[in-house]
């Protein structure tokens, strides 16, 4: 899923881009409003994050211009302008959400995931569609997993990894295959990136992360998901 991120402060933009990339999004960055519109035309992202006060064209203008040709694309404003009028104008122009600076990483992640869920629904993906891995049910469009009463929030990348393992149940998937599928072929991770990610994911979805039943390590080869019936 591709995100256009337009923000003029370089440090804020890089930080946000890192958060989005770690969630599993492909990020297209723009440092001003004019570049944002140019990237939008060339890249056609799945949703857009816009700062309001930007050089060349303001976030409001960019939003309006995008809305004129793509009325359904989700747009999130990220801005220090928290006054009510900004929110009104933002929503009147068709923004889907509003993140007010200063924000924490958790808030950004939660809002991005919420917009991604809406993207899935807008594309006609059935939010109730699911698959089961061991005792946990994964709802990809909802970026959630459910075990009994417990709900686990997932990132886009978590879902991509779980979908891949589920689709290839019983097979060992080597690291490169998982990387290419979930990080993209252009991504050059360090040797521990995938292991780190799997370790974090296990903490959230496994009953006992030390004896995983969903994502099993095949030493020297990669990872594997076994269907319960085969156990």
């Amino acid at each position, binding site marked *: 899923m591709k995100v256009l991120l337009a923000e003029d402060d370089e440090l*804020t933009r890089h930080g946000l881009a890192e958060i989005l990339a770690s969630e599993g999004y492909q990020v297209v960055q723009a440092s001003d409003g004019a570049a944002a519109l140019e990237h939008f035309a060339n890249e056609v992202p799945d949703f857009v994050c816009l700062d309001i006060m930007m*050089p060349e064209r303001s976030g409001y*203008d960019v939003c*309006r211009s995008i809305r004129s040709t793509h009325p359904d694309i989700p747009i999130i404003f990220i801005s*220090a302008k928290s006054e009510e009028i900004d929110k009104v104008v933002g929503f009147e*122009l068709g923004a889907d959400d509003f993140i007010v600076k200063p924000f*924490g990483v958790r808030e950004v992640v939660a809002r991005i995931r919420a917009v991604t869920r809406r993207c899935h629904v807008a594309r006609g993906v059935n939010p109730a569609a699911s698959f089961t891995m061991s005792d946990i049910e994964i709802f990809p469009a909802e970026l959630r997993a459910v075990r009994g009463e417990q709900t686990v929030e997932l990132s886009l990348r978590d879902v991509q990894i779980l979908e891949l393992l589920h689709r290839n149940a019983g097979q060992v998937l080597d690291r490169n295959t998982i990387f290419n599928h979930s990080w993209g072929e252009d991504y050059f991770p360090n040797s521990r990136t995938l292991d*780190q990610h799997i370790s974090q994911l296990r903490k959230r979805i496994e009953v006992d992360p030390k004896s995983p039943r969903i994502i099993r390590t095949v030493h020297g080869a990669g990872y594997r998901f076994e269907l319960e019936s085969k156990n």
Partner: protein
Amino acid sequence: MRVVRDDEVSLQRKFEDVFAVQIRDIDRIISQHFETLSNELSETARQVEDHPVDIRALLRESPQVRQIIILDHTGTVLHPDPTTELNLNEREFLHEAQELIRDRDLIHAWRADSDYDQRRQAATTGKTETAPNHPPRASEGWHVWYWGRGIHLIYWQRRVDGNVVGLLVERGRWMADLIAALPETVNQKHDKIPAASTSRFRLVDSMGDSVYEWGEYEPPEESSPLVDSAVSAPLASWRLQAVVPENLIAVQSSGIVFQLVTGIVAATVALSVLATFFWREYSREVRQASQRVSFVNQVSHELKTPLTNIRMYADLLADDLDNPDGHAGDKASDRLRVIVSESQRLSRLISNVLTFGRQQREALVLRYREVSVDELVQRVVKQFAPTLERLAITTELTLDASQTVSLDDDVVEQILVNLISNVEKYAADGGLLKISTSRTATSVTIIVADAGPGIPIAMQHAVFKPFIRVSSRLEDPAGTGIGLSIARDLARLHGGELRMTDSAKGASFCVELRASEEDRKS
């Protein structure tokens, strides 16, 4: 008792007069806002070509305009032409504007000089000797259109070919801009005039709904305004209202009862003085209000940007520490570097705001120390080094003031920081920061120059005034508009001066500082 009642009535009238003056001042702000907007739209309207492709391109470049309509003198729509292929926006607009076009409201309103066509035709057929050289007298203006969510504004311009171009102004945009031009929602407390903080002003739309309110007093529902006045065109169907507590007049009135004993004439005179003072002070307040709104918004934005980065990078650092990978050390030091540099940026801004506040209270005191100006310059430049490097700005230092001199180094540092911050914000494209220093027996000179776009001649006289930014549009770089004003005041406080100097390219500022009395004697 009749005397008291008469005096209450007289007092009520005085209050009404005072608030009516304030309402007129606010209305003037609104009028000026629309005058500025109409000047901008007039320019846009002149660029409208006939071809739909050109019109659509112009719309993309004109964020204030939602749609463009062209009518001929009979009221026939030339654009968007319903007989051709239209985009979604054009189709929606024609649908919304059906009634407007069918009722010929537009064309009647716009044909302000109805004999223009006849005169022009007569001229071309030789019935008169001269053709009118200019478009008709009332060749442009506002048309108000009520549809859907309420008022819509169309700026129209009649062209020399007799056709009329109408620009439907983006509603969200003009409303936001208008509200931004009005005073803050809650005024700062006014020590001198208690009454100024005990009123509520309302901008009310044609449906009687409040669009925007300000003032500390929160009136009960159904309270009727003391003053209720129509707004000037184009928002003539809207109203400006001032609401005051009923007991405000009663309190003043009870004062009158007391003063009746001591002398009613004295009270009337006192109230007249109060009213005059109130009127003068409030007029000044209203004039400064839009600048303050802008300042507060800018400071808030400026503070929040480094704060956002500090918080975000601290969160990322915490995540790294929770999930260490092979590059945790490198990443952690990068993140810490950002946190430190952003903290410095934050503290620079806070220093400026505090200095500004102290200046306002005239509470700034200089603390002289023996300082080498060259070392000070190097220290400040080092502070900016990461940012300058990131923005690819090369620094050229020509330093010739290494001997120590008695100065307030905090003050000189703040002047330098403000000048370099401006280079970073507004002149990064030039890629150059030049600082030179020199020293005479009695003074030190520091010149800070860049190779950026420079400052327009029209703005050069105003850049040292507080709240003045070369532009305050959303699209322009952030800034509070107090940096140069503070820098110059600090230089003057130091017995020196900050001025713009001629420069072939970019902007150049020269700081001249006098050394302290002791230093000059030595």
